């Protein structure tokens, strides 16, 4: 007789419990990231940030959520109703399901699959659909312009991001995220690949449509870009999707470059707290960048992606591969 946890139903229940254990803290994290961002930006701009609702304004995210729920959902005339409603769900859903493979501690990922990196890359490349569909289904020119900009931007930056990831794979010798973290036991990949680490971080700003690459929203030119027609809960889903994507990409950066859950201090134990700390530092930089840098012009953004990042990452990839091969450092060689 097999134990209950090895039967079909047992595996199903176990997966659901694991998923809840990850998704519930994640959603709370997303809610508090909005608070974190407003507080940090407030501090940078010598303001107080939210401080009215609850002690230190801690209930602000819930007040915002309630406000969003109470509002009326407006579907514009001439909009493609089904796609209009579907788009925010796609954006938010993709930001959540990508977490299935991220190991928050040794072997703690929900699915420890062989091709974890490819899974992450595939999911993040699907993210553009939420934006395009929203822009097209709204039947509004500003939304459509925002969607076109964002699609071009996300596709462009994905290319150099792909090369950066391939370079990491050469060093790690595995597509499994758990193995990639363990390969950084002695040296974080951010050290030998520092230029690529910077490129990856900047590309991830572009990939999540964050400042200074938030041309998809561009409030000063195209109102709010692809989600100009959205209101109430569907708007909230886009908003939360953006923040969930930020946490996701910070998790990716942590896993690929900053040694995941591994402790940087020799006498302290490794663990999930280190992972959280590193993600938090990445998120702080996201907010810091938003509060300090002005938005790029569209041609500058495209030139940066194709003419600067792509050549650098391509050459670095070839150089790293060459050095590893001739020095005999390739893992599993």
């Amino acid at each position, binding site marked *: 007789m097999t134990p209950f946890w090895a039967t079909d139903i047992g595996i199903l229940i176990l997966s659901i419990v694991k998923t809840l254990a990850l998704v519930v803290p994640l959603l709370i994290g997303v809610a508090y990231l909005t608070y974190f961002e407003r507080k940090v930006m407030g501090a940078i701009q010598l303001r107080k940030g939210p401080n009215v609702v609850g002690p230190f304004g801690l209930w602000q995210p819930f007040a915002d959520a309630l406000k969003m729920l109470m509002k009326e959902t407006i579907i514009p005339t001439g909009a493609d109703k089904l796609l209009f409603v579907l788009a925010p769900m796609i954006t938010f859903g993709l930001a959540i399901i990508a977490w299935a493979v991220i190991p928050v501690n040794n072997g703690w990922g929900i699915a420890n699959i062989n091709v974890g990196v*490819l899974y992450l890359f595939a999911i993040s490349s*699907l993210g553009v659909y939420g934006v395009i569909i929203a822009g097209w289904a709204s039947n509004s020119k500003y939304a459509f312009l925002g969607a076109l900009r964002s699609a071009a931007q996300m596709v462009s930056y994905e290319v150099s991001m792909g090369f950066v990831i391939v370079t990491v794979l050469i060093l790690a010798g595995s597509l499994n995220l758990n193995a990639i973290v363990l390969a950084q036991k002695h040296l974080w990949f951010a050290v030998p690949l520092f230029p690529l680490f910077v490129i990856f971080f900047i590309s991830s700003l572009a990939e999540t449509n964050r400042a200074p690459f938030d041309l998809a929203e561009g409030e000063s030119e195209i109102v709010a870009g692809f989600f100009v027609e959205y209101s109430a809960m569907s708007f909230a889903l886009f908003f939360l999707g953006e923040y969930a994507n930020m946490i996701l990409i910070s998790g990716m950066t942590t896993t690929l470059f900053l040694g995941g859950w591994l402790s940087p201090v020799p006498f302290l134990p490794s663990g999930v707290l280190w992972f959280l700390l590193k993600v938090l530092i990445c998120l702080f930089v996201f907010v810091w960048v938003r509060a300090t840098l002005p938005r790029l012009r569209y041609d500058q953004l495209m030139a940066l992606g194709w003419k600067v990042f792509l050549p650098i990452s391509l050459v670095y990839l070839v150089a790293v591969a060459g050095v590893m091969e001739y020095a005999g450092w390739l893992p599993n060689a």
Partner: protein
Amino acid sequence: MIANLAFYLFSFILLASAVMVVTSRNPVHAVLFLILGFVNAAVLFLLAGAEFLAFILAIVYVGAVAVLFLFVVMMLDVDFSALNEGFQRYAPVGALVALIMFAELTFIAGTWVIAPAGGADRLFPTPDNVTNTVALGQLLYTSYLPLFQLSGVILLVAMIGAIVLTHRDRKRSLHQNITAQHARTPAQTLAMVRAPLGEGVALPEKQPEEETL
């Protein structure tokens, strides 16, 4: 059991979305159904144990090719009434093409022979317990290296062709010379002046390199 159910579920969605690609009136919907079809095909690869192919299909086709395709289709200005008008006229030609295709497929299917050892290969999708990423890599970069490189060259040629066809030098477009801008010093761009009351200041002569910026 769950894997079998999943297989039938995803195959059904794949076939249904394939039908919708050809029957939907709105071209954007058709492309979106095509994308749904790609995703389901990727899931079927995954169920067959070919996880590398599955995710590469998702990344390349869904994440890149279909995005650009959707991009183009969305910008088309489609007149739906004109689309319906032509149906009567083109129906006979369409039926003829369909008939020829069907006949060809029938001929092929009639003479199709399945290799006797084929069934055994299917049971072992990856050899010697290596992951299928490793297995594919070992094949591609050893036995099939020339073909692999050749396909890369073909893609490169296609890309150059597309650039040559669409590239034209727009004399009127404004370009930013970033290096020249970075090389400027405050002395070249700034002049502190004290304007006397009622006289104003004389404008400095235009710098020659300002034309190139």
